[in-house]
């Protein structure tokens, strides 16, 4: 029996990554993972808050953990790696009496202690797992060569995230394989794509993201699978800029891994938000014989 999870979408999933939210929920529904959105959830305190004050960012995340606790949930699932880092950090801090007191001083409803938080990838891998997924596949991704890209923070820091191998993770590989895709041995699974340097150091982004796209192209990948809204946006939206700076065309669609799993599970294109991708997924998907 899988425990009921509280679902924490986070702000990106309401905006730039709506398709991640939609496809993730749809996959969980098919695979019997019950997700209940935390009522009245607020910002998790990641990017801006923790740079200013870790107690403040802790309190922002703790508020959401507190709401999940009150709802009687045993854990929280979040698709966004940034939210995950912050929720896990807050959870750890809440288990320390000193830190808890400082965090709770900022909250009107104090939070009694931490609550386990897992990524959507971990939830799908541990609650459903490759075997159950394979059994539920109706339209295998046969013929599609996918480079799984986990991003730099989904498994790091390893002590805090405590899931999979932080240097050579395999959870997404296994799920995609179960969905019938041909997964390439992508060497840069956990390299940084440089997204957070998007504004101050565009040259860095071109270099770091360029490496990723080039490696995927060299391996003959038809698509990238990602698990992070920031990675997706960066690699997808900026792909033309990167291509220009590297003087090399890519045309590699950047899917959320849940979109690909959803396709295999027979979900409709609209349910998965495929139309929101910038790089046209059509050519890649035609390999599946599902039509462009």
């Amino acid at each position, binding site marked *: 029996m899988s425990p009921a999870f509280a679902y924490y979408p986070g702000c990106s999933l309401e905006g730039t990554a709506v398709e991640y939210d939609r496809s993730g929920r749809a996959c969980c529904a098919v695979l019997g993972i019950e997700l209940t959105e935390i009522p009245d959830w607020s910002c998790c305190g990641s990017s801006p808050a923790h740079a200013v004050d870790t107690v403040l960012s802790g309190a922002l995340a703790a508020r959401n953990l507190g709401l999940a606790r009150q709802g009687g949930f045993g854990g929280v699932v979040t698709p966004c790696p940034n939210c995950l880092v912050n929720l896990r950090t807050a959870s750890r801090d809440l288990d320390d009496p000193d830190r808890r007191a400082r965090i709770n001083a900022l909250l009107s409803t104090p939070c009694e202690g931490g609550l386990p938080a897992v990524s959507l990838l971990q939830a799908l891998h541990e609650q459903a797992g490759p075997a159950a997924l394979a059994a539920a596949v109706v339209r295998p991704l046969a013929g599609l060569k996918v480079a799984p890209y986990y991003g730099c923070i989904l498994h790091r820091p*390893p002590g805090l995230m405590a899931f999979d*191998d*932080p*240097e*050579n*993770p395999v959870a997404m590989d296994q799920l995609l394989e179960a969905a019938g895709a041909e997964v390439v*041995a992508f*060497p*840069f699974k956990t*390299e940084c794509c440089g997204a957070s340097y998007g504004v101050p150091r565009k040259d860095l982004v071109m270099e770091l993201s360029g490496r990723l796209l080039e*490696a995927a192209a*060299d391996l003959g990948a038809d698509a990238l699978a990602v698990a992070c809204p920031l990675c997706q946006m960066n690699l997808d939206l900026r792909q033309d800029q990167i291509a220009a700076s590297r003087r090399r065309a890519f045309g590699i669609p950047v899917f959320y891994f849940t979109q690909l799993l959803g396709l295999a599970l027979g979900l409709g294109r609209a349910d998965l938000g495929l139309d929101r991708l910038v790089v046209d997924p059509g050519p890649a998907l035609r390999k599946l014989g599902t039509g462009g």
Partner: protein
Amino acid sequence: MRLGVFVCHCGSNIAATVDCAAVAEAARAMPDVAFAADSIYTCSEPGQEAIVAAVAEHGLDGVVVASCSPRMHERTFRRTVARAGLNPYMFEMANIREHVSWVGRDKERNTAKATDLVRMAVEKLRRNRPLTPREFPATRRVLVIGGGVAGIQAALDCADGGLEVVLVERTASIGGKMAQLDKTFPTVDCSSCVLGPRMVDVAQHPDITLYAYSEVAAVSGWVGNFEVSIRRKATYVDWNKCTGCGECIKKCPAKDAPDPFNAGLAPARAINIPFPQAIPKKAVINAAHCKQLTTGKCGVCAKVCPSGAIDYAMTDTTVTEKVGAVIVATGYELFDPTVYGQYGGGRYPDVITSMQYERMLSASGPTGGHVVRPSDGREPQSVVFIQCVGSRDRHIGRPYCSGFCCMYTAKQAILTRDHVPGAQTYVFYMDIRSPGKGYDEFIRRAMEEYGVRYVRGRVSRIFPKGDRLVVRGADTLMAAQVQVEADLVVLAVGAEHAPGAQELAATLRVSIDEHGFFLEGHPKLKPVETNTAGVYLAGACQGPKDIPASVSQASAAAAKVLGLFARGTLASDPQVALVDPRRCVGCLKCLKTCPFGAIREEQGRDGAVRALVVETVCQGCGVCCVTCPQGAVQLQHFTDDQILAEVEALCRTPLPTCG
């Protein structure tokens, strides 16, 4: 009773923050104290002579020295007191250095605390009784556990010194890691040419009994009188008949057994002799891979063996040996590099470990000494070595330096140039640590004569590109990222404790450190002893060591054993538990709790059951004393009376007012 108190300044170690004269002055007012003085260095010759003189002059019955930790000098002062004609146990030590001057800065309060500690010591000493060690005979035989270079050296030294030696080796041959090496640093001489004759000496020595393919299962007894049971694992080959001809190996159809000697580079047959120079040179069947033993369908080796040595029905047997001392020389294990996902060890065939590379360099190795890529058998033109794989990394629980990787990497880089002239060699390193004799010169040669390119920095990732590997890392001297294309990557893996070290430590009742290495008695002054009398350490079981260091320590351990037996008899420590038969009700709770099995059940003349402490086994831990509901067991020298007297002495002083 007339007692003397000596308060030591320890130069400025104590005197800087304790008023030693005032402590001595206060001591003069304590009960039974007939003499008190302070001295600059009590442990020095004049300091000790002053104690001897004071005992004579003032007719003292006991002495308190307030100075450093008893671990440091208790034995010294016991000898001084004995020299003055007193029983050595009529001595007490108050630790006013580690417990006072080194941990507190407030001179006034330090002085008060030092006075308290002296008062406690005086109260205890007033209740001390002279104790006398017992002499007992020792079995002049020694057990050496582990047949690597350290075990071999220790066994030979002991045997040459006239002791009988029982050498137990877990694998089928002695030789250990050194036998696997091609060359040794910094002389680049052939490892088996150095070790081989020593292995033969072991086999031929009349006073050495070798149990190969055997393990120590249990140890009982105490220094001078250990009883060891040794499990001889089933080899399925009668070694009395086997001549080592190797006919069986040629014909064995099961070719997929692991070959630990070649570090997994090549598979072996189910029946095998580990290497050509093995001692003993006898065949062993790997039961898990033998078709006869797993499916009952084969029996080829039995048919071809010209001596009829094969015995599929063989089972493990146990032998018991009596020894007086034990030398542990179980060595180390190499780090498993698959822990580092980013290096791709175990995933990419051309990322290998240093031991695999060593086997490749060896003329007797699986490639006959040719350096090739495991993936396609091509000769690599560019070889990258990565140091500190599994060393100096607290994130994976290996914060310590493995000590020998810098040197063996330089050796392998040099040998690479000999085997593949013109090959490029790169070494990624954190620091070069080469403090041994001729070591730094050797590293220089690698850099200057052999053109090995040293890059100071960690490697972040290894990934394939075409049929080559890309090694990406940092060059911290250039403050730049670097990327090197390699045909072969060699991970210089570090050392970790041998498998089973913890179980063996429990069997021997010795301690291991946080990383699983055996713990020495004292890091400076007892480097080869353990805290269990009669058990000594040699080689890398105590921490990573290279060959010279292992051999030195092995000889040191042998010297300790020879010294132990030199006098014929041993003296027991009288600070042991003693049962008062009038109070003991025979509940035997103490027998159950004693961690050393030192308590026996005894029937008195009245027929009642009572506990009896075996003096020579008792380690004086005191567990039985606190267990006994009757208070019938007392630890000599630490009786309830003595401890309570100390506590009372402490409670008599008013609490200091704080700040």
